[in-house]
């Protein structure tokens, strides 16, 4: 895990091969002893009722099915989003992250938010050379509605060195907002789902 002084060094270096990019980093105080606070972005994917039987994430046209029951909204600064008990939405970090080849990261909840019942980022691993905003899976496990506000510090990212890194060839090239899952792109899916 990278501690503050190393994090600051890598945030400030001009060497693109070593640099950690976090943009916009609105306040330097977001850099903590062993992590960087991430803010909630302005765009969300919300669920809506749709004329579909079920979402089968493994179906080849699952992305289209998912799109039918999701609505992308962008809030302006100062607007609120209410997350009701049991509700699940996708949001993203405000910050666009860029990792060098030799580095990975984990995104975790901030405990202050966890104590309100908010669960964030169940898929927390960020691979070397990833570029993009981090999609946050937001769910309210509490019993009271939660008020979310874009811009608030909602998660934290912890960096670590990774040996033998290469080019990022994941499914999410340069995302700038929350992205639905792409399980259907698993290469061995045909074996598990014979027609």
């Amino acid at each position, binding site marked *: 895990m990278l501690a503050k002084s190393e994090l600051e060094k890598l945030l400030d270096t001009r060497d693109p091969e070593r640099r950690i990019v976090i*943009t*916009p980093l*609105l306040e330097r105080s977001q850099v903590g002893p062993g992590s960087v606070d991430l803010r909630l972005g302005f765009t969300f994917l919300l669920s809506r009722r749709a004329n579909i039987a079920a979402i089968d994430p493994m179906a080849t046209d699952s992305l289209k099915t998912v799109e039918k029951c999701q609505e992308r909204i*962008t809030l302006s600064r100062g607007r609120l989003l209410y997350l009701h008990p049991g509700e699940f939405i996708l949001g993203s970090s405000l910050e*666009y992250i860029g990792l060098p080849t030799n580095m990975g990261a984990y995104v975790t909840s901030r405990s202050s938010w966890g104590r309100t019942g908010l669960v964030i980022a169940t898929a927390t691993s960020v691979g070397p050379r990833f570029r993009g905003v981090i999609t946050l899976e937001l769910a309210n496990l509490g019993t009271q509605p939660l008020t979310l506000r874009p811009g608030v510090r909602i998660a934290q990212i912890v960096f670590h060195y990774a040996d033998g890194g290469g080019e990022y060839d994941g499914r999410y090239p*340069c995302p*700038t907002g929350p992205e639905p899952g792409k399980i259907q792109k698993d290469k061995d899916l045909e074996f598990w789902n014979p027609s």
Partner: protein
Amino acid sequence: MSIDDLQRLAKAQVINIHQRLAEARSQEFPTNSPELFGEFLERLVDALGEFIQQNSDLTLLRYSCEILRIIGSHVRYLENGSSSKVPAQLIGSIENLIQQTRPGARVLLRVQWSFNYTVIDISDIYRTILRNLLAASTIDTIFSGIADFCVVGIPTIEYSNVLLHAALGHEAGHRLATDYLKTEDQKNLVATTKAAMGDLGWYPGASQLPPLFRFNVSQRLLDGILRTRKRALEELISDLVGWKTFGISALFTLHNISLVSVLDAPPAEETRLYPPWRLRLRGMMLKLYTEEIIEDLNSLRGSSPIDMIRDAAVRYVRELNDVVTDTSDWNVLNADGVLSRAYADLGEALVGSEAFISEKLGMTIYGRETFRRQIADLLERLALGFPPDELRDSTIPDFRSAMAAGWLYKNARVSVPYSPTSEWEIRHDETINRLVLKAIESIELTKSFEAWRSGNM
């Protein structure tokens, strides 16, 4: 229809409009301007509804019902302005740009089915319509908080093509063009046009006409020449504003939009007297050379893909130069007596408008120095797969530089993030658009945040 029929019709229309407004207003909007517009329409509909119920003049009632229909159709501006339909991150920058020429103006950004960029001065339209119906004090109440309101339209199919939205610089320019044209000496303009028309010897058959008919033809031609000239100048001055506010992005946008059009199509009534595209492109290319932007493109230095982007940009400009060196548009214009006279003094008039525009735009002008200083850093950011939102010295760039970087990168057709082993694919254009939009969001947010912080420390 009787008075009673019209009053019942109006009641039903008012109820319908309220229902549609309630539905439209339940959406999420990128700013609070659409919300204000919704409230404004509600006040307007109520006032008009009340006027109709208290009036018994059949003509006025018909007219008022027609206005209600028009208002009903304007609910679509709200419906198409929700944050799920427009590039919400762009609205702040567009609002700032329009407010430079119209302090305090509110902006509603919406998508429209037609392939066109528009800025509609909605408050002016309503004031004109209502002037003869409602009392001045009622009108003032209806317009409270919304004295100057623009509805900015972008084409639905291009909503995610943020680079093309540089066209809004041109659209915002129409207001300045109108203001400038009002300052022209109309008497002198008519006199010089009449002198240029001479004895109409150039107009087929004019010499055989009896004096009275000849006078009529002369008046019609004079009107045609002046309207054609005015329309040409409206577009060309707006182009100039587009150039001054968005720089090279305005040129690329104009070229992109012109691609599906006939370059030398002469101005005609059915095309609302638009000047030929080639002529408009020539105007922008002239700025590119006189402001020496071409030198800045030539001097872009850096490792791949910067060198590739530079070469592609220079090649692109060279090809555009070939297009505008061809004067076939002038051949078409000069072959027509009306058009040649309408276009005779355009160059001179444009030069005259430049000082006026520069003064009005003030600090909004996107100058060469900003472009020159910022562009290479931002291209590097794009090449690395980052939003073009930060310069090497960690300062924030101008959002117009981010757009220019997006255009230059896109025109070069290299992969993003750049990899010498990856070929360009169409999806890279989409990535560039998203990165530029993210950059605009970051730039505007950082500026606002820093302003807030400096005011709170």
